[in-house]
């Protein structure tokens, strides 16, 4: 597989940004200053980034409650995201959406989503737009193993095939929906479900950026070429609780430790690219440092930013009313 140096650098930077963004949120959340629910994507970075490295702003994605990673991977601006999570008027949603509703339509990011299974129908629609407007775009619905059981998701698999839509369904399978294991909640297999709805199935290791990048590339190319939808099943581990504050007693002691030790997508990426001589350690170190600074200043700016005001409460319910 040939990957442009530019793509490698950008993808590493995106993964590192997600990691630092999330780990910083983990720390900041504990101080009590961040309101609401926060679900961390940490450990799953290579999935969002590997998929989105095959997309442009002309393509559309939908995300989930665990949306920060997809937003960053799709190019949403980090300081606006951080400010949003702090509920500030400088946030991408002016403080009205929060962690679960970050969106940026100019980037083709149709929102994190607080409703499990909310995104797949929307991506059928985005794909229909791309198809009808003939703009060459594809739509990607990210959703979890838990969401793979929702009726809205399953209906969408059928609809996408019936309408032959350019959409890729990315099942990010981290083995849990909240505190419930997918071995309990998900009957049958994702593969058989894809067949059940007449679409090709692909799968890959979600800690390996290159595997995701390549497999997603094939899936997206298939959809983009007008051959209809594809299901891409990505195997992952989440490193933190379902949401911040979850003690994770349902997981074995070593599970997360092992994921961190053996399946850290950033470590694996670094190892691969340096061993293959594609990038130098110093390239990556420079990114690490730049990202550290970016996150630091996004937090400082978010904390200092102004709160929304009374006019914001009533604004933007409708375009016109």
């Amino acid at each position: 597989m040939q990957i442009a140096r530019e793509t490698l650098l950008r993808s590493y930077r995106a993964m590192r940004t997600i990691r630092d963004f999330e780990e910083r949120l983990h720390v900041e959340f504990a101080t009590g200053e961040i309101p609401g629910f926060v679900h961390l994507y940490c450990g799953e970075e290579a999935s969002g980034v590997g998929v989105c490295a095959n997309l442009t702003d002309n393509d559309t994605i939908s995300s989930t409650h665990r949306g920060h990673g997809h937003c960053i991977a799709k190019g949403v601006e980090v300081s606006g995201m951080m400010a949003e999570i702090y509920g500030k008027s400088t946030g991408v949603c002016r403080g009205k959406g929060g962690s679960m509703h970050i969106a940026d339509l100019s980037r083709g990011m149709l929102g994190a989503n607080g409703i499990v299974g909310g995104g797949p129908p929307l991506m059928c629609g985005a794909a229909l737009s791309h198809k009808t407007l003939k703009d060459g775009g594809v739509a990607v619905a990210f959703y979890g193993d838990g969401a793979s059981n929702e009726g809205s998701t399953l209906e969408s698999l059928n609809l996408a095939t019936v309408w032959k839509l350019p959409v890729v369904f990315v099942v990010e399978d981290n083995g849990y929906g909240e505190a419930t294991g997918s071995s309990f909640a998900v009957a049958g297999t994702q593969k058989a479900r894809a067949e059940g709805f007449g679409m090709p199935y692909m799968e890959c290791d979600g800690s390996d950026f290159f595997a995701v990048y390549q497999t997603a590339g094939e899936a997206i190319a298939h959809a983009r070429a007008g051959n209809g939808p594809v299901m891409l099943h990505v195997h992952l581990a989440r490193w933190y609780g379902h949401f911040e504050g979850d003690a994770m007693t349902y997981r074995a002691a070593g599970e997360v430790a092992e994921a961190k030790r053996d399946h850290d997508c950033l470590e694996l990426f670094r190892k691969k690219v340096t061993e293959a001589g594609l990038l130098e350690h110093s390239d990556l170190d420079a990114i690490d440092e730049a990202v550290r600074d970016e996150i630091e200043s996004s937090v400082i700016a978010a904390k200092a930013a102004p709160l929304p005001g009374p006019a914001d409460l009533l604004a933007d319910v409708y375009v016109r009313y």
Partner: protein
Amino acid sequence: MSKKSFRQAINEAMRLEMRRDPRVIIMGEDVAGGQGGSSGVVDAWGGVLGVTKGLYTEFGPERVLDTPITEASYIGAAAGAAATGLRPVAELMFVDFVGCCLDQIMNQAAKFRYMFGGKARTPLVIRAMFGAGFNAAAQHSQALYPLFTHIPGLKVVIPSSPYEAKGLLIEAIRDDDPVIFLEHKVMYDDEEEVPDEAYTIPFGEANLTREGDDVTIVAFGRMVKLANEAADKLERQGISCTVIDPRTTSPLDRDTILDCVADTGRLVIVDESSPRCNMAADISALVAEEAFDALKAPIRRVIPPHTPVPFASVLESLYLPDAAKIEAAVKAVMNHKVTEAA
């Protein structure tokens, strides 16, 4: 200008807008019909009651999309398409089926703009038929507009005649917000003069279908006609009524209602939706708060009982508001004597 049925008026609104704007598409179960059938006839139905008939023939499969029976996914798809450049008109068939796709309406389409800080537009129209009088029983006869009216982010339209339907639907299709467009199923064959060309009727501007001095009647959809029938009879008995058709429940033309009540001092509201937390309550509360001093009598509601819609014709008739019940309510407010010092 020619006589057109409610069905034709709605069909024409879609047809004209589809001609005008290539981004307008329609979708729904059997909006064409015949896909995958053995005869090869497409546009076999044009909607379960024939409302979209002929659109497939004119605009083809790219713009008239039949769907599987999967309301959550296709209504959600309409929302997603609306947020990304199309202007879908999705048909939900019976509004009662909203139970299968409420999330995509309530938590997705309606909230995008606000949650995303004003950065989304969702020019989506959801058409559905509603109402009792067709012996369609409890799961196919509900009104349900209070549910939609309750949800911030939605606009809700209830046309009361063919003329109204055409103008309001064109307005709905050109509107940049999600609109729920509700067609009373008993009205599809009602006819009146309707212009051939496109015209719009703005949202939030009530139609004063008649003006009078004694009592203000507010009614929705099919009830507007019944209210006017009652008003005709009352007129002959020397009671003169204003009849307001708000046209849209959200936005609501508060000013017209308040002004009329200021004039007449008496209010009767006719609403065929289930009685609790419905539009009759909504308007009554508005008036009891904002026009209280003008009121000379209690606000009367002509509403169904708190029961599902029954099947048998005889029960369905008892269930529904009708001209006689409206007449009785108007007389009651006219005859009201203050029994206690206010």
